């Protein structure tokens, strides 16, 4: 089995599962309880928070536990809208965001907020000049993803940060779900960034778990009110097994990060070079520093993406049509549409997404399978 769909989800690491199980058995006290069982759980909760903060080089009180990337995105967007509505009702995002951002914005539009969607060029990147032009006196939030989940383009966050330096009151959020463990820490550490959302299951952590970095001093209205956990910002009894599992997964994914990134880049380059020689193949991702090392999106002319996914499945190779979230609805990729890729071409798109456990040998197997599939469809394709 070759698993090339790591942007959809990753397999939980065995060490992470061991922690998950041990914590479920031995640390099941409620961290808010005053007695010894509660203390023990609280000790682990704070140690997990500290470890994540250390790995991200931020303060522990800047880390909030969430149920995943979707909650993190929803929280920053709606929480900013609620907390800063008296200062303005204008938000800026891009045309290629994950649905968690896009649909949160759409919901706010229905409530009377004004949203600007920055266009992208043919490489799937926004133009910082467009951001500059879109900023208004009533802008309260700019939300730009780090790495696009469908084609892997890296957005010009440094340039955006520079522009936003002149707008110190505007919240700057980065959806970093696809950016962790991909050699992009310098980008995520830009001091102007106020919020970063992460999802544990994208880096071999447990499902239903994520964390949000929220810079000290920034205000965010809670979406979940209740017992006052997470400094009253995100109530709900803490999911401690998943939290500890995520802290461990983050440590593991960031260990030896550059070597792991180099391995993924080598696999991507090998497949990229092979695909480039095929006249019927359109490659939507680039293979340079503007693109993440783990995502490669391409299509075989005239063959629907779904068909290609199943053809690879017959070879025991698992890939996806662009993003897993929209693949079942059969909609064409939002990112490719925003890049003005014609619908007919966009429907052919498939995505392979790698992680540090993939190997060059798998790339060879993939290439062999690809050649067979490519040849197989020449019949309908000539």
């Amino acid at each position, binding site marked *: 089995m070759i698993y090339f769909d790591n942007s959809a989800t990753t397999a939980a690491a065995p060490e992470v599962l061991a*922690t998950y199980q041990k914590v479920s058995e031995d640390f099941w006290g409620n961290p808010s309880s*005053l007695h010894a069982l509660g*203390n*023990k759980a609280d*000790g682990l909760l704070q140690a997990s928070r500290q*470890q994540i903060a250390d790995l991200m080089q931020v303060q522990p009180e800047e880390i909030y536990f969430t149920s995943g990337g979707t909650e993190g995105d929803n929280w920053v967007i709606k929480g900013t809208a609620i907390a800063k509505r008296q200062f303005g009702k204008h938000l800026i995002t891009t045309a290629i965001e994950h649905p968690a951002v896009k649909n949160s914005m759409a919901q706010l539009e229905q409530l009377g907020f004004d949203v600007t969607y920055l266009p992208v060029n043919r490489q799937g990147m926004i133009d910082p000049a467009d951001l500059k032009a879109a900023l208004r006196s009533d802008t309260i939030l700019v939300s730009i993803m780090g790495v696009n989940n469908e084609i892997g383009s890296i957005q010009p966050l440094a340039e955006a940060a520079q522009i936003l330096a002149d707008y110190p009151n505007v919240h700057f959020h980065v959806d970093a779900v696809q950016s962790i463990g991909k050699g992009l820490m310098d980008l995520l550490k830009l001091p102007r960034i106020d919020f970063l959302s992460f999802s544990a299951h994208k880096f071999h952590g447990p499902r239903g778990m994520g964390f949000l970095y929220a810079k000290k001093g920034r205000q965010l209205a809670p979406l979940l009110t209740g017992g006052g956990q997470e400094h009253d910002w995100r109530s709900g009894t803490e999911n401690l097994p998943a939290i*500890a599992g995520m802290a461990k997964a983050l*440590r593991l994914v960031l260990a030896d990060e550059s070597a792991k990134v180099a391995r993924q880049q080598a696999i991507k380059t090998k497949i990229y070079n092979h695909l480039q020689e095929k006249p019927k193949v359109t490659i939507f991702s680039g293979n340079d520093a503007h693109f993440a090392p783990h995502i490669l999106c391409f299509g075989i002319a005239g063959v629907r993406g779904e068909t290609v996914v199943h053809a690879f499945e017959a070879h025991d190779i698992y890939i996806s049509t662009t993003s897993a979230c929209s693949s079942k609805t059969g909609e064409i990729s939002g990112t490719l549409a925003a890049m003005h890729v014609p619908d007919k071409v966009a429907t052919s798109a498939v995505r392979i997404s790698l992680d540090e456990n993939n190997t060059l040998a798998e790339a060879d197997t993939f290439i062999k399978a690809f050649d067979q599939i490519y040849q197989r469809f020449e019949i309908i394709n000539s």
Partner: protein
Amino acid sequence: MEYTEIMVRYGELSTKGKNRRTFIDRLCGNAKKALHDFPELNFHPKRDRLHIVLNGADSQAVMTRLGLVFGIQSFSPSIRLERDMDLVRKTAVQMMTEQFRPGLTFKVNTRRSDHNFEMDTNEINADLGDTLLTALPELVVQVHNPEVTLRVEVRLDGIYLSSETILGAGGLPVGTAGRGMLMLSGGIDSPVAGYLAMKRGVDLQMVHFFSPPYTSEKALAKAKELTAKIAPYAGSLQFIEVPFTKIQEEIKNKVPEGYLMTVQRRMMLRITDRIRAMRRGLAIFNGESLGQVASQTMESMVAINDVTTTPILRPVLSLDKNEIIKIAKDIDTFDLSVMPFEDCCTIFAPPALKTRPNLDRTRHYETLIDVDGLIEAAIAGIQVSEIKPGEHYLVQDQAEINSLL
């Protein structure tokens, strides 16, 4: 740069005539204790310097520890070279290149303990100055206030080069001032008072009163964890816990509300003084600052101090709260101190207590309780433990937690 030794300059002790040997021995012993887990180190205490030969140990890690040892004015990582001027020139250039930026000011400062060396001090200064300016023409010589001083020491066993001087913790070696007891609560002030006492060379032992079930295990753990935080300055600290429940209940039961605090403090002081005598201490330290809270007025001090003639030393007496907090943050006790657990001082705090207690009345109310019997019982119940730097008490399961993460 692969350093071969750390050269340590003594602090104030250099000025102390006859006691010099004792001071140096104590400082060297404290440094050894602070570096006990680096067995490869060799310590050579000399009259004016302590040389710590690294034998391959990580110089950065060693210096981090040394930064906490009182009695050290400053230290410099240095390299021992064969007595070969070509090698010295080459290494000097290498050393300066690491710190170089255009316009950096420097001077060369040579000391010779071996006066038979082929070149004299001035010749070496000039020679190395020339060499460095030729190699790095954008360096600027500045004799009076240079940013970098390249120190050269010519000794019989080699030539030592260093270019960095790192400020030490100052103060006097812990132990040189004699032994004292610190009355440690869980608050902000007493750990700071303890730190300042150790800075002046006091061999300090912690006395902590706890009153289960009115105070939680966490309050005791917090006091121990605070002790672990300031233990690096001493190597390790004795922690003496005194059971205080019986006494507090008795006082609460018999003494009028306005005098609860005063009588309670007198009992604590008596017990601390007994422990001091048993352990051959000379003085008692506490975290009182004048006028901060009701129990810290001068009238209150008179009424409490009445039970002993032992010196009660108050290192933070004249500091403002903000100044104390600043030190607490510097020594990393603040976050712990503000954790909200009931301690024995707050648990029976009456709504209205006397800010100016009358001494005669205090003495009178005390006759209502069995002072000697209660003290004997408390003394019989004390428990002593040794607390080392880096130990954790609040989170008991640290090892298990580390294995999970």
